[in-house]
């Protein structure tokens, strides 16, 4: 049995760890409220954008933009959104697992992939995995700005335009609720139609200026808005996951402390009993 002093220092160190995890839990909880609000604020744009794109795919323009045309996949692109910091449970691991599964599926069909990475964790993970990284952006912070994403997205769009990649997928975490986050892979390009029954058939927009030029900027913004929404959602997931992970860490630390406390008390009692026995024995001898 370890000496009482050793156990005491161990308890002390666990207690200070518990303080840290508890503080992190509370910070994550307060941040989560804010990022959830931000997520709600950015949702209308992404939804409206999807609606417009849905209308576009239903309309019958004489011109079809390359972003809307399906072509044979020879190489695919993944935009992966992960967090900058760790200590958020299995959030990133699950995300990477999903990404790798999608990647493996393409590789069995002899299709390789290019990556655009957002977040430190994604960068360090895919550095180990290998694969061609076209662009990356890190330190987006708790409030990602569209400006910081434009560059990364543009690299991928350029690759699509030039025919280097034939599909673009977004890999990100979707915020279900505080306790659960889901990692998903969704196709960004070519654009997939959205079901909308309201619209009558055979109609088209009036395009100002020409469809070719206009659709390019509409579709670019569409992709950007989806990536932005993904980034904002990812931050909310990060905070939620961290809060839960830190809460369980604090609980575990508490359990460990109480069991150690028991051992410590026993050791102390044993020492006292021994000392008493010695004194009694000594007195009897005299």
């Amino acid at each position, binding site marked *: 049995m370890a000496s009482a002093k050793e156990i005491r220092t161990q308890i002390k160190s666990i207690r200070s760890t518990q303080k840290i995890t508890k503080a992190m839990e509370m910070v994550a909880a307060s941040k989560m409220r804010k990022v959830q609000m*931000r997520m709600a*604020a*950015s949702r*209308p*744009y*992404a939804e*409206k*954008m999807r*609606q*417009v794109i849905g*209308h*576009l795919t239903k*309309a019958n323009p004489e011109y079809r933009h390359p972003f809307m045309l399906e072509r044979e996949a020879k190489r695919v692109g993944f935009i992966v959104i992960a967090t900058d910091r760790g200590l958020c449970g299995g959030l990133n691991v699950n995300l990477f697992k999903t990404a790798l599964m999608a990647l493996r599926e393409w590789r069995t069909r002899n299709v390789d992939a290019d990556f*655009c*990475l957002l977040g430190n964790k994604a*960068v360090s993970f895919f*550095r180990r995995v290998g694969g061609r*990284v*076209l*662009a*990356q*952006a*890190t330190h987006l912070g708790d409030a990602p*700005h*569209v*400006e910081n994403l*434009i*560059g*990364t997205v*543009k*690299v991928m769009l*350029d690759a699509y335009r030039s025919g280097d990649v034939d599909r673009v997928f977004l890999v990100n975490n979707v915020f279900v609720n505080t306790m659960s986050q889901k990692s998903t892979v969704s196709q960004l390009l070519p654009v997939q139609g959205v079901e909308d029954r309201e619209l009558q058939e055979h*109609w*088209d*927009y*009036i*395009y*100002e*200026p020409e469809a070719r030029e*206009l659709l390019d*900027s*509409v579709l670019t*913004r569409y992709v*950007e*808005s989806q990536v*932005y929404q993904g980034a904002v959602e990812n931050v909310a997931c990060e905070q939620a996951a961290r809060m839960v992970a830190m809460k369980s860490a604090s609980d575990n630390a508490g359990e460990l402390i109480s069991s150690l406390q028991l051992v410590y008390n026993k050791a102390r009692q044993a020492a006292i009993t021994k000392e008493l026995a010695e004194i009694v024995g000594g007195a009897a001898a005299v």
Partner: protein
Amino acid sequence: MTFHVDVVSAEQEIFSGTAEMVFAPAEMGELGITPRHAPLLTRLKPGSVRVRTGAGEEAVFYVSGGILEIQPHRVTVLSDTALRARDIDEAAALKAKRHAEEALANRSAEVDMVRAQAELVEALARLRTLEHIRKKLGGH
């Protein structure tokens, strides 16, 4: 007669409600939109979007550009938050690319490090063997 108007930007919802008329700075000229307008899709120039709600009230929003979608009973203004121009976008793309390339360069440095360490270990082992052999020879 009124129709539904949404003014949104990527980072927040700006306006949502009904209106009698909307004025928007389209790229080909200012547009005045009334209900049952033909479907139209256009880019916006920097300028102000005015929404005339009932009773002659007007709400004014500044947009730095964006996209305007018109459906007969619905108008959507998708406003940009960032300043957009071809060369700014290009610069951002280059920056993102450069980050990736730098990381790649760092990785090769790391790989070199690992290889150098492996070589070092091997060299030391060889030296030890040499020493061993020398000692043996000295003993003889």
